[in-house]
């Protein structure tokens, strides 16, 4: 399968790869996917005053999955929680030129953002 240049770039130079302290009250962690399906994404957001200050990802999956999560971390940084919540998988598909068989990678990235935000909200409910 031929990858787009952007996918190759994110795969070769992943942005914001790594982990944040998941016990930190300001950090929301989203883990989506399943090993049996061949992809698992972990996305972490450090949030302060409703704004995403920092983001990190780790991904088990194909090149498109890695690129989708890497791109997601780039996009959410500096956004408010509400803005980040609006990011649609189709925007990721367009940016990375993902072929139809790889659309689920972008869906996973969108889900990971939402999962990380809701984890943050749950932590800070009390």
């Amino acid at each position, binding site marked *: 399968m031929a990858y787009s240049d952007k996918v190759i770039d994110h*795969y070769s130079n992943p942005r914001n790869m790594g982990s944040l302290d998941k016990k930190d009250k300001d950090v929301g962690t989203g883990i989506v996917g*399943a*090993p*049996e399906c061949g992809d*698992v994404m972990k996305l972490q957001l450090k949030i302060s005053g409703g704004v995403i200050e920092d983001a990190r990802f780790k991904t088990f*999956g194909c*090149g498109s*999955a890695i690129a989708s999560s890497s791109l997601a971390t780039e996009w959410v940084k500096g956004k408010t929680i509400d803005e980040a919540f609006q990011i649609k998988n189709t925007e990721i598909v367009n940016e990375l030129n993902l072929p139809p068989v790889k659309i689920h990678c972008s869906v996973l990235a969108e889900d990971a953002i939402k999962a990380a935000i809701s984890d943050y909200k749950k932590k800070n409910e009390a």
Partner: protein
Amino acid sequence: MLKLPVYMDYHSTTPVDPRVLETMLPYFSEKFGNAASKNHSFGWNAEDAVAKAREQIAQLISCNTKEIVFTSGATESNNLSLKGVAGMYREKGNHIITAVTEHKAILDTTKRLEKEGFEVTYLPVGADGLIDLETLKAAITPQTILISIMLANNEIGVIQPVAEIGKIAKEKGIIFHCDAAQGVGKIPVNVDEMGIDLMSFSAHKIYGPKGVGGLYVRRKKPRVRLSAMMDGGGHERGMRSGTLNVPSIVGLGEACAICETEMEQENLRLAEMRNKLQNHIMSELDEVYLNGHPEKRLAQNLNISFAYVEGESLMMGLKEIALSSGSACTTATLEPSYVLRALGVGSDLAHSSLRFGLGRFTTHEEIDYVGKRVVEAVNRLREMSPLYEMAKEGIDLKSVQWTEH
């Protein structure tokens, strides 16, 4: 000097050996005759060339030259065997036995036969990839007309106990077909000693051209008959009509002759390199698993699962090396390798597998390079893998509630 990219996908196909190509060339031009033309020298030359190829093949697999039918390759040979036996022996019975790890050219054919009213038993395999002979015996019924088991597996390289299967088939008077596309030319084959009645093989897996192969069809004890799939001029004793592809057949013959001469030495060389690659990878990485039986396998095969990294992304990190993966993402079906799944390998590890196929032109330098690059790429992706991180934290991944998608 190491030349990139490195080809390590010899199970998929092989380059034509220059010596093979050399013998083929005249048969495209000055010696272009039709082997079926009985009345002039052009035809005779072609016929002689085909006869020589038959001898070279017969020599390699220890059969009579009259027992070889030329086809377009192992897929056609497999189709002809299964459909040909099904058509010819239907009166005798409607039961066929094969195994879950067979090539799709077998499994898709038996699926079609099932639709036509045949009963098919798919034998399971053990964690080592081998069928169990007692299970085979127990599966035989008075209706069984055919057993079809491969010699060596195309993904994991395991070698089935073919001689024992042949013995069981003989005792019960059942025809035994063997898909030997990955075995002929790589390991010694003797159709009599192995009790094989029908055997498929292919040229392009053994440094011959693509689009040609053959089918061994036993003529005595028992005389196997097949209903033909192709109607026409009655070539190949009526089993496969169509003008013989003389240049390719010449190439197949030469490829067999070279394999026969060099097999013993070549297997030692390949095993040494394969073991070196395996040891390199296994000594530098944790949680890597060999797929298939550790000894009963082809010297050129190495199939390994790398826990916590996904096969396609691993191949992407090794783009200067030509490899295959059991990962779903590398197939059209989005399902991980059915062969690995049949061994009981979990989907996660099936997604994480690489198949290394070594061959005649593989060098030690390439082996060292591939070993080093694989270790680097796996380490890099594990650094990126949330699963590896969780495993290192002591989290049992099986206990996690994943969101299936």
